[in-house]
């Protein structure tokens, strides 16, 4: 279980996270949604041990989260930061040398599932194929948690579909969790167990997707829109 308690994170004088408390058990697929600058990426980096909070505590199975958590969680950044002169095979070999939980057999299987050639150089790949390679090397790790920053962003529908199917096929919801930030809520909703909504550095809602539909009779997208409107009205009334 990853637990964050009363996290505050500042970049200079700007507060990126304000009093965020959340627990993520194993075995869940969770969507992290909110506008740009709402704190999604910061929250993911915090869970990955890449950032330390100004105050509050972050723990993994009760132990404080440090950079060494990288051996248990697979973090995928929203930037393209591979050595572009590598071939796909060389990138896989590099990942294997860096992570103990990297599974070479699984890596080959995912790359094949996603139809990417092992001999292509990263720099010669299309944006879509770079997206496929990125998710392939991330999922090839047998991590407890996969933290994915915008895995679908800027990719065409074919690639998004492939990545979604790769996620379902190559993660085990009985013992692993996936937390992904996204703007494509409507599309991603069928993949999710829960949704966390961020706004202005605060966590404003955390709900099970089935319950949103059961209880409110609307899908996650409409629910989020109504949630934002509600906040707006509260603000205007000066609450």
């Amino acid at each position, binding site marked *: 279980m990853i637990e964050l308690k009363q996290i505050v994170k500042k970049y200079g004088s700007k507060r990126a996270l304000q009093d965020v408390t959340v627990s993520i058990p194993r*075995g*869940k*697929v969770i969507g992290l949604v909110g506008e740009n600058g709402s704190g999604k990426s910061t929250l993911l980096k915090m869970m990955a041990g890449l950032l330390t909070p100004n105050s509050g505590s972050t723990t993994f199975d009760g132990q404080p989260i440090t950079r060494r958590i990288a051996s248990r969680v697979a973090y995928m950044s929203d930037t393209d930061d591979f050595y572009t002169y590598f071939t796909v095979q060389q990138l896989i070999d590099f990942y294997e040398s860096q992570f103990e939980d990297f599974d070479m057999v699984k890596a080959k299987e995912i790359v094949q599932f996603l139809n990417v050639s092992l001999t292509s150089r990263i720099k010669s790949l299309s944006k879509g194929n770079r997206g496929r390679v990125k998710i392939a090397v991330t999922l090839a790790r047998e991590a407890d948690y996969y933290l994915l920053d915008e895995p679908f962003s800027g990719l065409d529908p074919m690639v*998004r*579909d492939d990545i*979604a*199917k790769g996620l*379902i*096929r190559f993660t*085990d*919801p009985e013992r692993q969790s996936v937390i992904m930030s996204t703007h494509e809520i409507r*599309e991603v*909703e*069928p*993949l*999710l*167990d829960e949704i966390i909504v961020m706004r202005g550095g605060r966590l404003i809602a955390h709900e099970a*997707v*089935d319950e949103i*539909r*059961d209880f409110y*009779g*609307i*899908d996650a*997208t*409409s629910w989020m829109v109504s949630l934002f409107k509600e906040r707006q009205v509260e603000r205007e009334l000066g609450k």
Partner: protein
Amino acid sequence: MSIDFLPDKPIYQQLIDRILGDIMRGTLKAGEKLPSVREYAVEVGVNANTMQRVYKELEQMEITETRRGQGSFVTENQEKIMALRNEMKEQLVTTFLQSVAAFGFTTDEIVKCLQERGGEND
């Protein structure tokens, strides 16, 4: 991502309805093996936990059965499938008749209309 879900009903319920529909229409036959939870989840593009719940509820309805180490199968019990068909039929008719009444049509008027339509389709 692969099938479109309605916005006002939980996804697992829509998947249960879809599989029940396949069984009632005979697309899935009595005794036929269902895909594994993971395979089916990938096919329709939903979370495997959701699909697990679908399979569990179908089993509780006794429409499918799980055989150890072999997977899930549609029941071979034709009575169960017939009972399901009848139940769905009753439900459909009840909802339909509620709308009929709400719009102020008489049952006779509707029956006549259905018979004409039925004649066209046969």
